[in-house]
């Protein structure tokens, strides 16, 4: 069964450094998302992406964040200057184009630790 993959599984970085989290969505999916989950808290929406542009973003997704689909298969989330409060699990998700369903396929996540 096809699945969403994410790399790395765990990233440790120092405050102020840039990080890039990578995702490979399911190949025929058209909609892509990033969510995050701070330890012990809710899963929070960050951004959605369709047709090579951002469709919607939350208040969390400020100027420090950016997304890119550089080569038609990868989908990346960049944090330009990490803060301690960016420490969280980051999940990538994708969904097919036409299905009238709330089914999104999530990856295993990248645990980001900012020190």
């Amino acid at each position, binding site marked *: 069964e096809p699945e*969403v993959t994410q790399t790395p599984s765990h990233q440790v970085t120092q405050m102020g450094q840039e990080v890039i989290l990578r995702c490979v969505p399911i190949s025929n999916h058209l*909609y892509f*998302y990033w*969510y995050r989950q701070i330890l012990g808290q*809710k*899963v*929070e*929406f960050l951004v*959605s992406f*369709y047709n090579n542009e951002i*469709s*919607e973003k*939350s208040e969390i997704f400020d100027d420090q964040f950016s997304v890119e689909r550089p080569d038609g298969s990868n989908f990346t989330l960049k944090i330009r200057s990490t803060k301690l409060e960016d420490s969280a*699990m980051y*999940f990538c*998700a994708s969904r097919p*184009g*036409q*299905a*009238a*369903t*709330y*089914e*999104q*396929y*999530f*990856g*295993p*996540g990248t*645990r980001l630790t900012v020190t």
Partner: protein
Amino acid sequence: LAKTTQPISMDSYEGQEVNITCSHNNIATNDYITWYQQFPSQGPRFIIQGYKTKVTNEVASLFIPADRKSSTLSLPRVSLSDTAVYYCLVGVPNSGNTPLVFGKGTRLSVIA
């Protein structure tokens, strides 16, 4: 998305049927009810979606009464591996880019 209310946690013994109820009093006509499951340190996983009456798949059943103001996720004969957080979401599924809005969910602990 409509506001949902679920119990914070539930405990069950292995082999029992577990029913998790979600309240969504302000559900709109076009809203569907969707349940996700999240194991520790993993991404959420879609379980089931329904609009009315009953939906069943290989994992669970979803019961929705006629007024649709609540719904019940039923897990038959749970095992230790069903220990997870279960989320109820209500909204209009479409082919657009609607993000999912997760609440705190129900933490199910299955005990041997």
